[in-house]
């Protein structure tokens, strides 16, 4: 088994638009929980990860600390999860059920670099 990180990216505006009514939000919430639960039951979750605040600081040297915008990535990372999968193909396969995809968001699947230590 290898380790992968899922980075959940979405644009703030799109994220809000995809929320819709309270009823839709609840449905989306329930879908997300079901997806996580199912990954967990199959032993693919190494660490559930954390949500991230959508704003912070961008540091580009001591004199270039800004509040963003995160110009390089219009899609803000809203959180991450540490996944265990056989290979990249499986990690991608497992990510397809992520509800963020229905709301125009993106899952970035990145293998954790293997070291020989």
């Amino acid at each position, binding site marked *: 088994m290898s380790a992968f990180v899922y980075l959940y990216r979405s644009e703030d505006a799109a*994220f*809000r638009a995809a*929320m*819709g*009514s*309270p*009823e*839709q*939000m*609840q449905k*989306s*919430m*329930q879908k*997300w*929980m079901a997806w*996580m639960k199912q990954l967990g039951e199959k032993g693919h979750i190494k660490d*559930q*990860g*954390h*949500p991230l605040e959508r704003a912070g600081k961008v540091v580009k040297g001591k004199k270039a600390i800004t509040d963003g915008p995160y110009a390089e990535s219009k899609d803000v990372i*809203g*959180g991450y*999860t540490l996944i265990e999968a056989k290979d990249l193909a499986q990690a991608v396969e497992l990510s397809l059920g992520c509800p963020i995809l229905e709301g125009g968001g993106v899952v970035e699947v990145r293998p954790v670099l293997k070291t020989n230590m």
Partner: protein
Amino acid sequence: MELHEHLFRREAGRMVATLTRIFGVENLALAEDVVQDAFCRALEVWKFRGVPENPSAWLMATAKHRALDVLRRERTVRTFAPELGRLLGSEEALPPAVEELFAAHAIKDDQLRMMFSCCHPRLPEAAQVALMLHILCGFSVDEIAGAFVSTHAAVEKRLVRAKRTLAGSERLFEIADAADFAVRLPAVHRALYLLFNEGYHGASAEAAVRVELCQEALRLAALLFEHPLGSTPATYALAAMMCLHAARLPARLDASGNLSTLSDQDRSRWDLGLVAEGQRLLDLSATGPELTAYHVEAAIAAVHAAAPRVADTNWTQIVSLYDTLMTIGPSPVVALNRAIAVAQREGPGRGLEEIGAIADRDRLAAYPFYYAALGELELRRGRGETAREHFRAALALARNAVERRFLEQRMDACLRPAID
């Protein structure tokens, strides 16, 4: 931890009501934004950390923190609720004041304030109902459009206008004033009645949507009778009527999803808990000198609920209750229902005579169940051909697939020789 069904929707209503009380009615949009923020936050955190022990309290606490932020940040640029001006005036007074405003009893009162505010006399009834559904029940424009078989644009226009009227009223309705409360109460009853009816008799083909409307009407009616000024005989009667009707909802569609009339329903599927609650509320309504249409409608529903089989129904009592209803709130639909009850007691011929005698019968011309009733009675007295024509007319007016299927089946029944 599983989320309670429609939890977000209901919490949205509670949060908007309280935030609007704090921000002032002209800042309704701001209150809605804060609620949206609280939900976004919940979603982001719960996805990773799981649903908290008490999700309602979590959401309310988040809304409370956001409210404090907004009040601190915008105190100098915005005018918040004028009625709370002094309370929210100073930096030190702010946190305890907001804490107090988020207490459970305060949130209940806020929902009532909002309910009464939505029933502003300058708003048409349809707008009052839409506004209550939107603000207090957390229904989106699309969800309301779906429930009322209307378009997104039409509902949105209605809501925008209604919100403007609401914001223009400067402050929320004050429920502490007993005299004002009593004056506005009938309009609130009427709006809740219409909301319930939209669920019970409405045009939406989605049984689930209609059940939700009935549940929301019941929930709001309960908020009303739990308040000392709201617990009038008429409120109890209205709530009783809702319970006794809602008790029959599980039997309205049969196993194959077809519409089942009162006489054909599998009565074992009636909700006995709701029947008992309806009966309890009906007993509570039986005080004071006033007899409202709600009392009579609840009493009619109670007579039906008391009959284990159709044959056991006390039709004499029902006809006499309809007679009373015709004196309190006469309408062609009431007269039609009375005629149907007469037919049950004295045969289809008498029922048809009564229908023929309805004064403003032409007002029933667009009502599919007027023709369906004519068809049913003609069929019962063996005139299949005539009956079929009436059902055909009803079919042309049917509002959804479920009604259409039902009426097609009735048309087919006219081709079979009558058994009785």
